[in-house]
C-alpha cells in the first residue's frame, strides 16, 4: 500500500450568509444593538472523509454546487476547514488558476518572479527556474514586454509554464485545460503525463464521465456537500447516473 498524500478527516466547511445583506458598519451597529443579526448557515462540505494515496489519479464528480471546488480549495490550503482535519503532503499545484497573480503592467520576466514567490519559492530558486520557464512558454523576446501586450494564449502559456516547472506532488486539473494552440496544448498534456508517470498524484474535476472513465482509477462523488460514493470509477458513475435520473 502506498503512502497517503492527502488525508481528509470529518472535514466541514460552512459559509455564514446573512439573511439580509448588511453592507455598512452603521447598519451592523444598529442591528447588533437590536440583536437582529441572523445568519443562514450553508454547508458547502459536511463531514467529508477521504484518503488519497501517492500516485493515484482520482476523478471528482458531482453537479454544480456539489462542493467540488470547495474540496479542492481545502486541499490547496485556500480554505481552512471549520471542523475536521485536512492533511496534505507535498507541493500542490492547482492548474485551475493559471497566472492568478499576474500584473498587466509588469513584464513577463517580472511576473515570473512575483508569481513564483506567490507559489512559495524563493527568489534564488526562481533564478534557476526562470530560463526553463521562458523556454517552455515559447514567448521568446516578448518575455520583456509588459503583460498587457500579450494575447490570451500567451498569458495562459506563461501561466502553465510557471505553474508546472517543478514537478508537483499533487496536481489539480480542470476538465477544460485550454492553453494556447493545439501544438502547445499537446506539449502541456505531455508534461502532465510525464509528471504522472513520475508518481504525481492527480485530482481531476470533470463533468465528462467519458474523460473520468478513461483517465482515473478511482472516483469520488459529491452531492450537496456530502461525499456520497467513492471507489471504482464505474460504480461511482452508476450511482451518479441513478441520482441524476431520480
Amino acid at each position: 500500500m502506498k503512502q497517503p498524500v492527502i488525508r481528509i478527516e470529518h472535514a466541514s466547511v460552512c459559509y455564514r450568509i446573512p439573511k439580509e445583506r448588511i453592507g455598512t458598519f452603521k447598519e451592523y451597529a444598529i442591528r447588533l444593538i437590536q440583536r437582529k443579526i441572523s445568519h443562514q448557515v450553508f454547508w458547502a462540505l459536511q463531514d467529508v472523509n477521504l484518503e488519497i494515496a501517492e500516485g493515484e489519479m482520482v476523478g471528482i464528480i458531482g453537479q454544480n454546487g456539489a462542493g467540488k471546488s470547495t474540496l479542492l480549495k481545502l486541499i490547496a490550503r485556500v480554505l481552512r476547514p471549520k471542523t475536521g482535519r485536512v492533511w496534505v503532503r507535498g507541493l500542490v499545484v492547482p492548474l485551475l488558476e493559471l497566472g492568478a497573480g499576474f500584473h498587466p503592467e509588469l513584464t513577463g520576466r517580472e511576473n515570473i518572479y512575483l508569481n513564483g514567490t506567490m507559489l512559495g519559492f524563493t527568489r534564488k530558486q526562481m533564478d534557476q527556474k526562470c530560463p526553463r520557464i521562458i523556454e517552455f512558454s515559447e514567448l521568446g523576446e516578448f518575455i520583456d514586454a509588459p503583460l498587457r501586450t500579450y494575447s490570451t494564449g500567451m498569458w495562459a502559456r506563461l501561466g502553465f509554464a510557471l505553474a508546472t516547472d517543478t514537478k508537483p506532488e499533487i496536481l489539480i486539473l480542470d476538465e477544460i485545460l485550454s492553453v494556447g494552440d493545439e501544438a502547445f496544448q499537446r506539449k502541456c498534456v505531455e508534461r502532465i503525463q510525464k509528471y504522472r508517470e513520475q508518481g504525481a498524484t492527480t485530482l481531476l474535476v470533470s463533468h465528462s464521465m467519458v474523460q473520468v472513465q478513461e483517465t482515473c482509477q478511482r472516483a469520488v462523488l459529491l452531492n450537496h456537500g456530502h461525499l456520497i460514493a467513492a471507489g471504482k470509477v464505474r460504480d461511482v458513475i452508476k450511482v451518479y447516473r441513478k441520482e441524476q435520473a431520480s
Partner: protein
Amino acid sequence: MPMIYDSAKRINPAIDEIKEIIRYRDLVALLAKRDITTRYKRSVLGVAWTMINPLGMMLILTIAFSQLFKDVPGYPAYILSGLIVWQFFSQTTTAAMVNLVWGGGLLHRIYLPRTSFALAAILTGLTNLLLTFIPLMILILIIGLPLRISLVFVPIPILFLAAFSLGLGLLMSTFAVYFPDVAEMYQIGLTAWMYLTPIFYPERILPEKIGWFITRFNPVYHLVRLFRACIYEGRFPYWNEVWPAMVFSMVILVVGWTVFSQKADEFSYRI
C-alpha cells in the same frame, strides 16, 4: 523533506503567520517592488513624484501659514519633517487596507500569508520615506539648520512608525473585510487625525484641554515628536519622549497582528 500541511496542527495563528511570512519573505519584497514600479510606470517624472508630492504640500503650507508661525525656526523644515511621518502613516495604513480588499481576489485562488499585503505596503512606504529624506536633508541645509550626529538615532523612530502603521493597517484591514465602507470612513478619520496632530502648526497653539489630551493619547504625536527631535531639533531624544512612542507602537502592532491572524482564515470566505 516534503512540506506538510496539517490544518489541525496549529498552536497559535499569530505565531504561525510569523513563520509563514518568513518563508514568503521574497514575496513581500517583490510585491513592494511591484507597487513602486507600477505606480509611476506611465509617468514622465517617475519615482521623483514621491519626493515632489510632500515638497508641494510643504510649499503650500509654508505660503499659507509662515506669517502666522513666524516664531517657528526653519518653518518649512518643521512642516516637512512632520509631513513625511504623517504621509508614511496615512499612506501605508490605507494601502494595507486597499491591497487586501482589492487584491484579495487572489486569496480565493492560491494560498498566501495574508499579512503579505500589509507588509508590502510598509516596505513600499519605507522606500518612499528614504527617498523623501533627500529633499528633507537639502532643505535643512538650505535653511541653515544644523545637521547633527543625532541623525544616527533616526532609525529608531522609523522602526516605531513602521510597527505602529503595520499594526493599525492590519486592524483596519480586518474591519474593512467585513464592512466595505470602513475604508471610506477611515479617510475622514485620517483628515481629522491630521488636524489633531501638530504637523504644520506648533504644539503650543493647542488649547489647553485638547492639548493635554493630544500630547498623551495621540500616538502619531509621539512619533512625530521623536522624529523631529533627531532631525529638526538635532538632539538626542529624552527617555520620556521615547517610551510613549515605543509603548504605543508595540501594543498596536501586537494587537493588530493578533486580531488579523485570528480572523485571516475567514477572509477567503468574505472577500
